[in-house]
C-alpha cells in the first residue's frame, strides 16, 4: 500500500494552475526525488504533501487518510505526527542550542527528552556540539541538526526541501549519507531538489513541468547497501 497517493490533484490560483491534474504514488520506505524548474509546481506539491496547503481539486491520501478534506488543525496534527521536515535554510531557533532545537520538535510532538535528543544528535555526529548555538555551527552542521530534529519523532515520511541547496559538496555528501542511512532503516523520503546529483541518490525521480508530471525516472543504478 502506498504511503502517499495524489489522485488527480490540481491547485489553482486564479488563472494559474500551479498543479494540473497530478497523480503520483510513493510507497512506504521509498526514496523519491522531485525535480523541476522554478514555477513547475514543486513548491505547491511540497506544501500539499507537507500538510500546509490543500488542493483545489483531487485527493491526497497520506497513510490512508484523505488530507485534502481535513481542517487546518487536523493537518497540523498529522504533520506533527507523521512528517519530518528538512529545509534549505535550515531554520533553527537562533537563541536555542542545537539540542534545544531538537527538543522543540519533541515539545510540540510529545515531551522534550534531552537524552533522546542527544542520541539523535549522536546519529548525525554532533553530540559534542549539542550545547552550541546555531550561530556557532557551520551550515552543514546546522543542516545535520535539522535532520536530527526531523527524525526525532520517528516520522512516517521525511520531506526535505532543497536540503543541500546551501551546502558545499562535503556537507552535501554527509547529508546524503544520512538519508541513505534513514532509507536503510525504512523511512520514506521525499526530497525536492534542483540538483541532479541529489536526485540521482534517490530510487526514483519525478520531474514536474508547468504543473504536470513530465516524466518519472527510475534510478537503475540505485544501491544502498
Amino acid at each position, binding site marked *: 500500500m502506498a504511503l502517499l497517493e495524489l489522485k488527480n490533484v490540481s491547485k489553482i490560483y486564479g488563472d494559474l494552475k500551479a498543479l494540473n491534474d497530478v497523480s503520483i504514488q510513493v510507497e512506504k520506505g521509498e526514496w523519491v526525488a522531485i525535480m523541476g524548474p522554478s514555477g513547475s509546481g514543486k*513548491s505547491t506539491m*511540497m*506544501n500539499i504533501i*507537507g500538510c*500546509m*496547503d490543500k488542493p483545489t481539486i483531487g485527493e491526497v491520501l497520506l497513510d490512508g487518510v484523505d488530507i485534502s478534506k481535513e481542517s*487546518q*488543525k487536523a493537518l*497540523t*496534527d498529522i*504533520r*506533527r*505526527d507523521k512528517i519530518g*521536515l528538512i*529545509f*534549505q*535554510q535550515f*531554520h533553527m*531557533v*537562533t537563541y536555542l542550542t542545537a539540542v534545544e532545537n531538537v527538543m*522543540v*520538535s519533541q515539545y*510540540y*510532538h510529545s515531551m522534550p527528552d534531552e537524552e533522546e535528543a542527544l542520541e539523535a544528535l549522536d546519529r548525525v555526529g554532533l553530540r559534542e556540539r549539542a550545547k552550541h548555538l546555531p550561530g556557532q555551527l557551520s551550515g552543514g552542521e546546522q543542516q545535520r541538526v535539522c535532520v536530527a*530534529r526531523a527524525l526525532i519523532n520517528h516520522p512516517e515520511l521525511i520531506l526535505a*526541501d*532543497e536540503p543541500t*541547496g*546551501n551546502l558545499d559538496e562535503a556537507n552535501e555528501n554527509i547529508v546524503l549519507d544520512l538519508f541513505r542511512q534513514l532509507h536503510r532503516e525504512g523511512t520514506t523520503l521525499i526530497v525536492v531538489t534542483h540538483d541532479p546529483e541529489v536526485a540521482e541518490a534517490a530510487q526514483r525521480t519525478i520531474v514536474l513541468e508547468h504543473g504536470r508530471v513530465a516524466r518519472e525516472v527510475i534510478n537503475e543504478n540505485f544501491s544502498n547497501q
Partner: protein
Amino acid sequence: MLIALLSIVVGATILSGLVTIYIDVPRQMGAQFRSYGANMLLLPEEGASLTADSLQEALGKIPEQNMVGATPYRYVRLDMPSRQQSFISAGTDFSQVQKTSPYFSVEGAYPKDTREILVGKEIARTLDVKVGSSVELSYKTTGKAGDKASGGDKAGTVLQGSAEGFNKVIVKTDVVLDEEGKIASLEVDASSQTPGIGSLVGTDKAFLDQFIGKSLPLKLSGSQAEDGAAKDAAQEEDSTEAAAQEEGAAKDAAQEEGSTVDAVTGATISSQAVIDAINSASSSSDDVVPIENTEHFTVAGILSTGGEEEGYVYMSLKDLQRLTMDETLDAAELSVSADAEELEAYSKEISDADLGITARLVKRVTRSEASVLGKLQALVFLVTAVVLLLTMICVSTTMLAVVSERRREIGLRKALGASDGSIRKEFLGEGMFLGGLGGVFGALLGFGFAQLVSVSVFGSAITFRPLLLPVTILVSMAIAAVSCQMPIRRAVAIDPAIVLKGE
C-alpha cells in the same frame, strides 16, 4: 521586547502612582480643604443652651484623629464707654481658632494672657487703636443686685442702697462685697445731707474705712446709738422726731447680730442713714438693677480676614464670661477631616444625641470639597485610563514587531507541529510575564512617583498600600494580555509554508 517591558513599567508606574494618589487624594485634599475653615457648626437647639460640658460631649462623637479643631464662640455686644460706641465681641479659644480658621491673618499676635484682645481691622481703623493699645470695654445688663460681677480682682457682689437721713434727705450707698460677704469697698453719696457735719459721712475716711471687712447687717456701736443720739439731736436743729426714730432703730439694731461701726461725731443720724442704706441694700439684693461691668484690655493683635470678622473684637472665652457673668456658648465651629458622608453621619449622631445641640454642615465648604474631590478623582481616573490605553498601544505595537521579527521562527514552530493554541499560549505567556515583571517595577516606581507628587504638591508623605502591589501586577498582566491579542492573532495566522523555500 525591552521596549514593551519599558512601556509596561511606565504604564504600571503611572497606574500604581495615580491610583495611590487617587486613594490618598481625599485625605490629602481634606487636609488642604481644612484651610478654608470649619465645615461643621454646632448650635444650641431651641430652648436649650450650649455649654462647655454639652459641647465636650458632642465632640466626643467625632473620632479624635479626624478632629482638626473645635472652636467655641460666644457673641455679646460690648460698649466702649470712652468712645460711646459698641460692637460685637466674640469670646473664643484662640488655640482652636487658629485650627478652624487658618485663614485668619493677625498683625501682632493672638492673645495669650487674660485681658488681651484681638481687634478686627475695621474696628481698629475706626477707633484708631494699634497693637499694644489699651481699650476699655464694658458690658451692660440688668440683673439682681446680688449677682456676681466683674470687679476685676475684687470680683464680688454689688449692693446699692438708700435710706432717709437727717431732714428726710436721701443717702445713697454703693457697696461691693467680697466673696465671703464682707464689705470690700464702699461709696457713699451724702451730698444732700446737712453741709458740714452731715455730709462728712460721705467723705470722712476714718468713718468709711471702718466698714471694710465687716459683714452685714451693720449697726452703730451701742454707746453712740444710745448716748449720742440725743446729743446729736440736740445739736442738730429740728431733730426731735428723727432722734426718736433713730433711737428706736438703734435699739432694734442692737438686738440683731452684726458688726458695729462708730458714727461720725455729731452726725449720728446721717451715719445711721448710711448703715440703713447698706442694710436695706443687702435685704433688697433680689431687686433687678442695672449692672455695668467695665474692664481694660490690651490689644494683642489686629485681625484681617476680608470678611465680617473684621468688625468684631475677639477675646478669650474666660474674659468674656467673666465680663458677662454668663457661661453659655452661642456656637462652636468644627473643622473635621472627613468626606461628605462621614460628616453627615457625625452631624446626625450629634444632633440625635439629645444634648440640646444641632450640628449643621457648612454646605458651602462641604459641597465644594465634594465637588472638587470628585473632579480631581475623575481627572486622575481619566489620566490613568489614557496612560493605560497608550501602554496597551505601545505594548501591542512592540509585540507586533516582535511577531513579524520572529515570523520565521513561528512558521518553523508551526511547521514542526505547533498548534495555534500552543503559539497563542507562548505569546500570551511571554506577554503576561512581561506584564508581571513590568508590574513589579511599576508598582515600586509608582509608589515613589506618588510619594514625589504627594510631597511636592501636598507637602505630606503618602502611606504605602501593600494591596496595591498585587493589584498593579495583576492589572499590568491583564493589560499585557489584552495588548497581545492582536499580535497573537497575527502570529497564529503565519503560514508555516514560509519556512519552505528560503525567503
